[in-house]
């Protein structure tokens, strides 16, 4: 069953089109990862889906209810975690939880039960009396998630919940997401981390407000057209620009190394002369298997 359906959504801010004919569906009990550069339209899309932002054309339905006309039916089914930490820093962990429980109309017995369950899997129990402002980044995000789980939502929309969180906390956070999926939740999550995209059931690549490609991570990776080479050399911005000026080849900085993308109709040997000019040779290059990120970069370059 499709729990979230977005069809041909358009939303612009003045002359800028933030979301452009975007469509997306999410099946029950799946994790959909939304990935794209900053300004691609992820947050606009999420805010529209959560009834916080109007949109010009298109439609959004959640659990069969229309966001524009039946949002009151959606509220109890939906959990939304905005990009920035948005709980009350001066309230303790337990007070934050209890406040949301109150908003969703939980009675005391239900809350205590729910609290125990949430403390168990989030490890927040030991910090119950600590003020939210004194929590670590990872703990804050877990608390924000817990506040959104208090009413057993069927659909969770999480806007970059792990950005800036340490790797261990990120993994723990995703363990929770997987458990929630197992329990039947539908999760749409945006993330800048490729390793997290790989954990999702479906990934959607958004760029300039458009759905550029979607599918399982493997399927997306397979979309890459051409070959990838890795060059273990400290990248130099002039060098990258010079390579990008050549036809059929492009270069990207990847941390402390460089990647070269070569179109399928070209051979690495075609650029032998150019390489020697930049101070390296064909032998310094190693062909590697394209990764998800390489696909995204290629899609962005084609756009």
């Amino acid at each position, binding site marked *: 069953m499709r729990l979230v359906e977005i069809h041909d959504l358009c939303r612009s801010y003045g002359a800028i089109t933030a979301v452009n004919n975007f469509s997306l569906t999410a099946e029950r009990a799946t994790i959909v990862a939304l990935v794209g550069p900053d300004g691609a339209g992820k947050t606009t899309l999420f*805010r529209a889906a*959560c*009834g*916080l932002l*109007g949109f010009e054309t298109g439609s959004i339905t959640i659990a069969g209810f229309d966001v524009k006309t039946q949002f*009151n039916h959606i*509220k*109890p089914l*939906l*959990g*939304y975690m*905005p*990009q*920035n*930490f*948005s*709980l*009350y*820093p*001066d*309230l303790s962990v337990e*007070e934050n939880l209890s*406040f*949301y429980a*109150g*908003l*969703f*109309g939980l009675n005391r017995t239900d809350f205590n039960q729910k609290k125990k369950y949430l403390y168990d899997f989030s490890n927040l129990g030991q910090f119950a009396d600590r003020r939210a402002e004194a929590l670590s980044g990872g703990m804050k995000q877990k608390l924000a998630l817990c*506040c959104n789980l208090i009413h057993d939502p069927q659909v969770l929309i999480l806007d970059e919940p792990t950005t800036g969180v340490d790797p261990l906390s990120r993994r723990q956070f995703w363990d929770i997401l997987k458990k929630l999926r197992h329990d039947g939740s539908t999760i749409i999550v945006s993330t800048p981390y490729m390793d997290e995209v790989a954990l999702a059931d479906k990934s959607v690549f958004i760029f300039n407000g458009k759905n550029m490609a979607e599918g399982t991570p493997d399927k997306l990776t397979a979309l890459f057209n051409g070959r990838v080479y890795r060059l273990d050399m400290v990248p130099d911005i002039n060098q990258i620009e010079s390579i990008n000026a050549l036809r059929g080849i492009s270069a990207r900085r990847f941390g402390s190394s460089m990647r070269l993308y070569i179109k399928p109709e070209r051979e690495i040997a075609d650029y032998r002369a150019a390489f020697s000019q930049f101070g390296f040779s064909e032998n310094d290059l190693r062909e590697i298997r394209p990764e998800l990120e390489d696909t995204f970069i290629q899609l962005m370059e084609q756009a």
Partner: protein
Amino acid sequence: MSKVGHIARKEFRHILRDSRSLLIAILMPILMTFLYGYAVNLDIKNIKLAVLDHDRTFESRELVNKYYNSGYFHYAEREPSPSDPERVLKTGHANAVLIIKPGFSKTIETIRTNPANLFVNSEVYDIGLLLDGSDANVAAAAGSYAAIIVNEYLASHLPPDMEFPGVEISKQVLYNPDLKSSHFFVPGLIAIILMMISALLTSITIAREKETGTMEQLLTSPVTPRQIIIGKVLPYIGLAFFDGILILFFGVFHFGVPFSGSIILLLFFMGIYIAAALSLGVLISTIAKTQQVAMMAAMIMTVLPSVMLSGFIFEIKNMPYFLQLLTRIVPATYFLQIIRGIMLKSSGLAELWLQAATLILITVALLAIATKRFKLKIG
């Protein structure tokens, strides 16, 4: 309704935990009451008076003593020189110089024994008073006090039906015969503080939820915008009443401000005024996205006009016409008339219904605009 209660309880916790807002809410009213009660004192006392007594008689000394015993004047820091009495004013050693020419005792004697003589000669004995006009308030006060004291002195020596030419009749001031400024300030202060608590703090607290993003969380949970707003302002209604009563308490019991009207009526009108102020606060919060902006907007739209354009300090009838028009949309203008009326003149509903009705009208208008704007934002 229980959701409103939840939001209100949470809001109350915020107030208790935020030392700044707690300070504004509780310490500031007390501080301002004492500040206006003591420091910002418009009563003119301790006027430095220098005396040049050329008459040197029992009567002239009696008059001088009357000045110094009045409580308004005390001795100048330096004696004036007979050749240049103005000098002590220039140096700031005195605010006023009283000059008694020779013949004062003789004049008094003439009036007492044979008043008819005075009219025949049509000569008026005048007492000189040099005033330092650079402090206009002190000068004006000293001038009128001086006239009062002379009148009193003459009255005690002349036959009761005697009219003495050339003596000023002092103005009679109703309701506040002592011209004590605390009687005016304490009721006015309540109007200012209530506006501050209600409009400033509520607009800040709503803007804070917007700034931190928690407003989005609230709006995606099953509560209506109306419930959010009501829940958030409830604690501030309580706080505003608490502050109003606190200032009233210090005003009446510490500064001796009379309270001649009905306290129930005052609390009732206070409720209407708080509602007006809260509506203004909510309206500001629909415009302001951050706490900083909310604070600035609230200062400019509420606190400033309440202080300057309500008759709190400056009399409305002395303002230019367009400012007078502005004072009519300032809620504090009406509440000030109400609270001064109830406290000092024991006015009742019969005298104050128009002010109350206007306040209600302003509240309804503000709420209508605020609700409309809030909906637009969400849609």
